[in-house]
């Protein structure tokens, strides 16, 4: 079964990092233990958040590179989600909503609210900056918490397979951020 504590740590690391990056304040205290179905829900939620934001970006941006980046996020995170869901099914885990998922979702809602009034280059810069922060947080959590501590061989393999995609997304977003400039 899932290594509950490792994934729980990822959830908190991810939530705390994103919270600090988006608000500049410390993250709230960690929630109590999660069940395996709840942990699975956190993983699916984290993926869906990036898919939803990318779909929003596609309706807003007029920059071809940003549009392509968003398309790649949708394609890749959908593929990863399919693998994660298949593994959850194989392991007999049915995702269940929980406090950490809700925290991630409310962070995404805030990000969407921050992006909503922006247009043109200002939107592109803010969206890509958010994507840099998001993928950096996920990569840190994978490297520092999940892969070193996960014991389930199939889950560890999935994480190792996903890691290069997250790293490549991060490099892609960083390169785009540089090209978009600061706007000052």
């Amino acid at each position, binding site marked *: 079964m899932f290594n509950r504590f490792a994934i729980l740590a990822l959830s908190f690391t991810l939530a705390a990092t994103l919270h600090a990056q988006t608000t500049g304040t410390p993250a709230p205290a960690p929630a109590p233990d999660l069940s395996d179905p709840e942990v699975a829900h956190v993983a699916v939620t984290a993926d869906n958040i990036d898919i939803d934001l990318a779909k929003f970006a596609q309706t807003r941006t007029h920059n071809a590179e940003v549009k392509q980046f968003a398309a790649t996020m949708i394609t890749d995170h959908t593929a*990863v989600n399919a693998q994660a869901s298949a593994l959850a099914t194989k392991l007999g885990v049915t995702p269940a909503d929980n406090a950490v998922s809700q925290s991630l979702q409310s962070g995404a809602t805030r990000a969407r609210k921050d992006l909503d009034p922006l247009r043109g280059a200002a939107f592109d810069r803010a969206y890509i900056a958010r994507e840099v922060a998001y993928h950096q947080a996920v990569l840190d959590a994978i490297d520092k918490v999940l892969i070193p501590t996960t014991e389930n061989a199939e889950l560890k393999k999935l994480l190792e*397979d*996903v890691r290069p995609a997250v790293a490549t997304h991060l490099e892609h977003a960083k390169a785009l951020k540089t090209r978009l400039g600061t706007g000052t």
Partner: protein
Amino acid sequence: MIGLVILLLAGPRHTHTVEIRGLAFHPAVLTVAVGDTVVWINRDIVPHTATGTRRKWDSGQLQQGDSGRYVASRTGRAPYTCTLHPTMTGMLIIGRE
């Protein structure tokens, strides 16, 4: 008969395989001859393409386990990339038969 002679003069054709794994092409640089076939196989979870930078060829999206192929048609260096992940790059060095 003429076809056989042409085939013999042309020499053997080879098929080369490039694995896509860990969001990289392996090998990233491959030397082939005109007439050889290059096959890309995607081992990653996420889809990829193998697309000539000058758009001479495009594998289309390759899902995990899919493969795409290209027959080297003329000599020279042929850089390519994955259009979904522009940080992924590869190079074919195409020599004479």
